[in-house]
């Protein structure tokens, strides 16, 4: 098992507008990017973030930046009553210790 914080160079979260939260993960090579990407689906993402699966809006690999990007519905709109992170910049925490296995298939090589 690998731990994401040992493999990724960037693990970040940020508002994508006031109603969505987006997570970017960047790697030093495409192998690492695809390993992480292949380990994920909407259900796993929802479980890590403790949100409903239908709140996962997109999950994609972006090879030009050796990146994986996940966008979800914000738990509540930015700045609404009960807000804890207006910019959404510290919501990446659940990903730091995310553990996953190296993929076995090589269909992206």
């Amino acid at each position, binding site marked *: 098992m690998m731990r994401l914080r040992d493999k990724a160079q960037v693990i970040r979260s940020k*508002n994508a*507008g006031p109603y969505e939260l987006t997570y970017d993960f960047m790697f030093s090579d495409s192998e690492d990017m695809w390993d992480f990407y292949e380990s994920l689906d909407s259900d796993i993402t929802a479980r890590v*973030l403790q949100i409903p699966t239908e709140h996962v809006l997109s999950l994609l690999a972006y090879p030009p*930046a050796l990146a994986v*990007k996940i966008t979800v519905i914000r738990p509540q709109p930015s700045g609404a009553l*009960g807000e804890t992170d*207006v910019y959404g910049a510290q919501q990446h925490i659940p990903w730091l210790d995310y553990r996953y296995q190296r993929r076995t298939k090589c269909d992206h090589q």
Partner: protein
Amino acid sequence: MNEVRVLSPTAILGYGYPMDSFNRGLGRDPHVLAVDAGSTDPGPYYLGSGKPFTSAAAVKRDLRPMLCAARERQIPLLVGSSGGAGAAPHLDWLRQIILELYREEGFKLRTAGISADVSQDAVKEACVQGRIQPCGPVSPLTQGDIESSFHIVAQMGTEPFLRALDQGFQVILAGRAYDPAAFAAVPIQRGFDPGLALHMGKILECAAIAAEPGSGSDCMLGTIGSSAFVLEALSEERTCTGRSVAAHTLYEKSDPYVLPGPGGALNLKATQFRPLSEGRVEVTGTRFQPDDTYRVKLEAAARIGYRTVSIAGVRDPMMIERLDEILNAVRDYVGSQMENACAYSLLFHCYGKNGVMGGREPVSTAGHEIGLVIEAVADTQEDAANVCALARSTLLHYGYPGRVSTAGNLAFPYSPSDFDAGEVYRFSIHHLMTVDDPNGLFPVVWEVDSH
């Protein structure tokens, strides 16, 4: 003209920039200076209240060298989303700053202010005509949302900038604008491809954030040609790499391949990022796909009340162990006391426990001390202060089981312990509105003559 060079000094007007970088950029003979002043990131307060999120002194400091350079070189200076949120009071705030600068410098440039405000009636009418739709995961717009909204603004595209340029304005201060618009306007005016111009604008609006190492307070130069644009950082400490520029496409966006904006979307599926010499990066292949109908994004905020907060430390390990239970008991007590007094919300932010992640905090153990923020929101400032004071005093002396520190439960860093934080807003409109004329909502509302 076979290329246009656009100089972006800083990511947000007021964030500052090094004069060395700026002068290096001027040495490249830019055709236009452009800067973005806005964002919804700081939350709904700024749009709702009409206040800027940057200081007047910082904005003035940033604008002065830009105005002087625009004058010396006879080039346009374009500002998007004036005052942060780009509504009437924000645009007026920037107008006052620029008038002060003109007075102090002893010159004036022909200047236009373009507003982006939309009346409640215009939005209601559009709503009735079926011209409003949610933008992203947002509920359909209601009459109540519209009527409770302060300062409804629409994001203008490049068209209002182009119109003002054609009318001969040299300095254009725009209300709320699509971030790339101020940067793309001059390249589009001079016949360059809108897809490339808008993609270049999308990167330049964040100035050197797309460089390595990134910075929101350093300059970036974009040069657009017939089939590509080239980016270069203007500080010797920074460089652009194919990856740093490509990665910027991810920043604060939900989909890096399709980026919607006024009147259409940028399509990046065929985009290539190619490193050149001297830390420059060439970008090709981005296309602008016009929509069948022209839609602009509307934004507004509604006031939900007034806030008072109290800040205190909790250090006693026996109290930290029972913190949730104690806070619930305090909440219940306040509820019983305020039952017939006023409507309010009472929240506890427990830093050191789950202050940042709230209910989704994956770590279940608390730290050895807790930073507690008591937050009360009510219809008036007085009510909010009352609720906060009651919660604070109740918690200070609350006798929980096993308590040994019977003199008080909270360590206050300040006297007074409570702070009135003023008006509280929520985002109330985040919808798309179909319009016939891309310029219709964005008139030039004032101008300054040159002399």
